[in-house]
Each structure stands twice: as structure tokens, then as C-alpha cells.
């Protein structure tokens, strides 16, 4: 078990390093650099200014040396310094990570919970009108661009009904603490998490449905019926448990898509997460920050994957850990 984790972590680190190197070069292919951006924003750009900035950002060094410096930093868990924001990248990401984790985990939970629920129903009533209705319902959210759903949500729930706040992470200046703060954050969280979660719900609904139908055909379900077990028990204990395994693993693999989807959600809802940070960093060519976000996002995906894998392995006795 431990060695399994160690092995995965090691592999993960290698993947991360590869990502660092690839992205390092990728990002630098883009026209423009942070000095150009900042000079532009300052409304002044003489050569001294731009050169000053370049030197400050370490961009005057040859590319391989920059890469070496960066990778050396990453290996020692130092993600570098964002010169634009005048702060260490790790700190900037650290400030935003909780918000993103909250958003993505909630969305992940919503999409899985609803997806499994709907998928189970659809499978139970496969071929009936209910099945079609559920599938279409789930698909509608899937078929609408996330930003569009978000926009509609804001119009409906913030503007028209005034139930939910339309932006941010908490009520600014309210200085709430304890429970009322949690409620406040939850209110801000509902719409972004729903928007993101409902989009992914369709995938899980479909997967759960297919998986349930697949498992239902298996012999051991017949055995369970031959025992005289009630339908509910069969569904829950024999069908659902077996059907969920592939769904959960796939969900882990999909986490990358989920985290990517957060970029848009965070933009529309002004959610102070790292998706936004990434997009801003990209536009501003804040190389270190952008790379840092990529590393962290990828690490998050790897961790999601590892967790779902661990769950899978804990639940499925067929896969054994070496001791």
C-alpha cells in the first residue's frame, strides 16, 4: 500500500517535471513577454524601462539557463517569484488554492452524486420515458456552454430573484465569522459549483447508467436474485457497488477536465481561484506564475487520480497491494 503510493508519487513527480519542461518552452513560444506587457500597461515604454524589467525577470539570461534555474527551483519545491505581482509564486497560488479546491471538490461531489443518482434511476427504468427524460435533462446541462449556464444562473438567481450573490467568495466587508461565515461562503459557492458540477453530471449519469446495465447482466446478480434478496438490496449491494468502480476511476481521470473547466467558472463568478490566476498570468506572460499554476493543477489532477485509484483498490479486493 505504502509502496504503491510511493511508486505513484514518484511517477507523478516525473510527469510533473516533464510538464514543467514542456510548458517552459511552450509558454516562451508566445509572442510578447512580461516586460512588454508591463511597459504597455504603464503607458510608457522606453528601452531602458523594458531592459530593466527583462533583467529583473531574469529574461536576459539564455533560455537553457533559465530552464535550469527554474527546474532547480521546482525540485527544491520553490516555484519561483512572480515579478509582476512582486510575490513568491507559491504564496500567490497558496492564497488561491483553497478557493479552487473548494469549488472543484464541491463541483466534483455534486456531479458525482447527482450523476450517480440519475444514472441509477435511468438504469433502473431503462428504456422507459423516465430514462429518456433523465438522460435529456442531464444532457441539456452538458450541451450548454458553461459560461452560458453561468450567465443564465446569474440573471435568474442574482438579478431577478436576488437569492444568491453573483460574484466573489464571501460578502466583502461583512466580517462574518464562524457559522454565519460558512453560510455566507456556501451561498457564494452554490452557483459556481452547480454550474461546473451540472456540466459534468451528464458524463457520470451516462457512465453510471451504462455501467449499471452492464453489471445487471452479470451472473452474480442472478445469484443474488436466486437468494430471494429484495430488489433494493440487490441494486444497492450487488449492482451499484460493482457499477460504481469504473465510474469513480474515470471520474479521477476526468478531474483534469474539471479543473480546466474551473477557469471559465471562476472568471464569470469572480471566484478567486487559481483558474483565474492562470488566465491572468497567461495574458500577462507571468511565466513563473503560469508555470507554477500548471504544476499545481497537474499535481492536483495526479492527486485526484491517486485518491480515486486508492479508493478503487481499497474497495476492489481483486487488486492487491504488495506489502
Amino acid at each position, binding site marked *: 500500500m505504502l509502496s504503491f503510493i510511493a511508486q505513484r508519487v514518484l511517477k507523478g513527480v516525473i510527469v510533473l517535471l516533464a510538464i514543467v519542461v514542456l510548458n517552459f518552452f511552450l509558454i516562451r*513560444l508566445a509572442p510578447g513577454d512580461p516586460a512588454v506587457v508591463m511597459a504597455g500597461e504603464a503607458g510608457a515604454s522606453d528601452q531602458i524601462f523594458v531592459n530593466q524589467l527583462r533583467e529583473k525577470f531574469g529574461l536576459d539570461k539564455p533560455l537553457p539557463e533559465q530552464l535550469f534555474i527554474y527546474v532547480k527551483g521546482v525540485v527544491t519545491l520553490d516555484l519561483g517569484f512572480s515579478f509582476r505581482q512582486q510575490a513568491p509564486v507559491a504564496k500567490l497560488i497558496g492564497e488561491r488554492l483553497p478557493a479552487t479546491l473548494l469549488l472543484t471538490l464541491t463541483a466534483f461531489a455534486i456531479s458525482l452524486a447527482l450523476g450517480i443518482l440519475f444514472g441509477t434511476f435511468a438504469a433502473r427504468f431503462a428504456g422507459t420515458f423516465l430514462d429518456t427524460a433523465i438522460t435529456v435533462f442531464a444532457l441539456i446541462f452538458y*450541451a450548454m*456552454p458553461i459560461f452560458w449556464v453561468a450567465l443564465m444562473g446569474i440573471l435568474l438567481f442574482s438579478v431577478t430573484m436576488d437569492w444568491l450573490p453573483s460574484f466573489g467568495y464571501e460578502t466583502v466587508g461583512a466580517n462574518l465569522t464562524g457559522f454565519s461565515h460558512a453560510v455566507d461562503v456556501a451561498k457564494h459557492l452554490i452557483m459556481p459549483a452547480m454550474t461546473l458540477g451540472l456540466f459534468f453530471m451528464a458524463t457520470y449519469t451516462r457512465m453510471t447508467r451504462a455501467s449499471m446495465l452492464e453489471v*445487471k447482466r452479470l451472473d452474480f446478480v442472478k445469484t443474488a436474485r436466486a437468494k430471494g434478496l429484495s430488489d433494493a438490496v440487490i441494486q444497492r449491494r450487488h449492482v451499484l457497488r460493482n457499477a460504481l468502480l469504473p465510474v469513480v476511476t474515470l471520474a479521477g481521470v476526468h478531474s*483534469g477536465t474539471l479543473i*480546466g*473547466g474551473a477557469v*471559465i467558472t471562476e472568471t464569470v463568478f469572480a471566484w478567486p481561484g487559481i483558474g483565474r490566476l492562470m488566465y491572468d498570468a497567461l495574458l500577462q506572460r507571468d511565466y513563473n506564475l503560469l508555470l507554477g499554476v500548471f504544476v499545481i493543477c497537474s499535481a492536483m489532477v495526479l492527486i485526484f487520480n491517486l485518491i480515486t485509484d486508492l479508493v478503487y483498490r481499497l474497495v476492489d479486493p481483486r487488486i492487491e497491494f504488495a506489502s
Partner: protein
Amino acid sequence: MKQFWKSMLRSPSGVIGLIILVLAISVALFGPMLFPNSPWRMVQRPFLPPFTLSAVPLGTDALGRDVFAGMIFGARVSLLVGLVSTLVALIVGVPIGAMAGYFGGRVDDALMRFTEFFQTIPSFALAIVLVAILQPSIYSIVTSIALVSWPPVARLVRGEVLSLRTREYVQAAVVTGQSNTWIIMREILPNALSPVIVLASLMVATAILLESSLSFLGLGDPNLISWGYMVGAGRTVIRQAWWITVFPGVAILISVLGLNLIGEGLNDALNPRLSREGR
């Protein structure tokens, strides 16, 4: 083949999906011939509501451009992006998956690490960066979408090939002296294709959405009108001119829905086991 169409036509979702797709494609193909108005031309006063003038049935946008013309030309770009990027993703993913599954061992290991690598980077984020770097254009958009969407194909194909490789008819081909290429092309891939086709139909849908999301972030091709562009452009004025976003939004919704329904139908048609046996 006949049987395939039969079962496809038996599933209601498949039929609805097919109708939608055929409609969308014919709009994309023939629409611009019937309505040769450039969607960029400012033809009327801005923010003209729909259904008021028959010349611009769906109203005009913020610059007084014909929303209807935009819808028709947009179909072309949206579908093209969806289809082409899926095609490219298949061209990349299928061979990688097939080789990994067929040759196994080190080849498999190397190719799968490579695939994993692409799956680990959050896909939309990668797409954004790629488009930004290559500078937005229809080519860079298609490339980026394809680049982030091939890994699932490779994985799926690999899985299928892995199981097909041990099939007796494949071994029969080996012992009758067929070459590896021949075996992959003739014996394995045709039998691995049904789930790939299902996946591909969904990928087209996802690609259309991805393109619209990129457009939303201002990373669309500025020389081509697409539904995603229209929604993105209209969203800032949604409060005063709902029609600019709603019509193309509905178009995306319906096409994506249609493609998903086709996927569903294909699934039923290509996996007769599931549909016929009941419980």
C-alpha cells in the same frame, strides 16, 4: 450494415440525433449559398429585435449585423471545428492507442506515459495556452482542441486492442503469416471501432463547446463567425438584446444534444447486447 441502420433507426434518440445532425450539416453546407449575405455586414440598425423585419428575421446584433446570417455561417465554422478537430484527434489517438495495445510491453509503457502526461495537464487550460501561443486562428483552435482531446481516444483504443489482440481470430491471422500492419488494420481496428465511433460523436460535441469557450475568452478566430463567437460577443449585451446570445446558444445546445443523442443511438446500435437483452 443494414442491420446497423435498422437498430440505429430503432432507437428514438438515434433518430432524433440523426435528424438534427443532418439538418445542421445541410444548413452548414447549403445555407451560405441560399443566404449569401456576409454575416459581418452591418445591414440594419443595431439591436433590432427578432421577428420585426423579414429581411433580418432574427434581429441584428450590437453593430446591426444580421443574426440569422451569423447563425448560418456560424454553423459552418462550429461544425467544421467540431468535425475536423475530432478527426485530427482520431488520427493522433487511434494509431497511438493501437500501437500501445498491440505491441504492449515497452512500447505500451512509453506511449501510455505520454498519454497520461497529456491527461494530467488540465485540458482546457492547455487549450487556452496553446491557442494563445499559436495566436488565435481556425488552425490553432483546431490543433489545440485536437491536442487536448486525443488521449481518451488512445486509451479507449488501447483497451479495445488489448482485448482484441488475444482473440483467436487475431492469432489465426498471425499463424497464417499476416504482417503486423495488416493485422492491426484489418483484423483489429475494424472490430475496435464501434466504441470509438460512439466516443467520436461525443467528441464533436465537446469540441464545439470548447471552441465556444475559447471564443468566450476572446480566443476565437476573428475572421470567422462561429456560434461560440456569437454567444461570447452577445453575452455583454444579453440584458438588452437576448436574441444575440440566445439563438446561437440554442443552436449549440441543439447540435451538442443531437450529437450526444447520436452517440446514444450508436451505442445501442453497435452494442446490441445492452439494448436487446434487457435485464
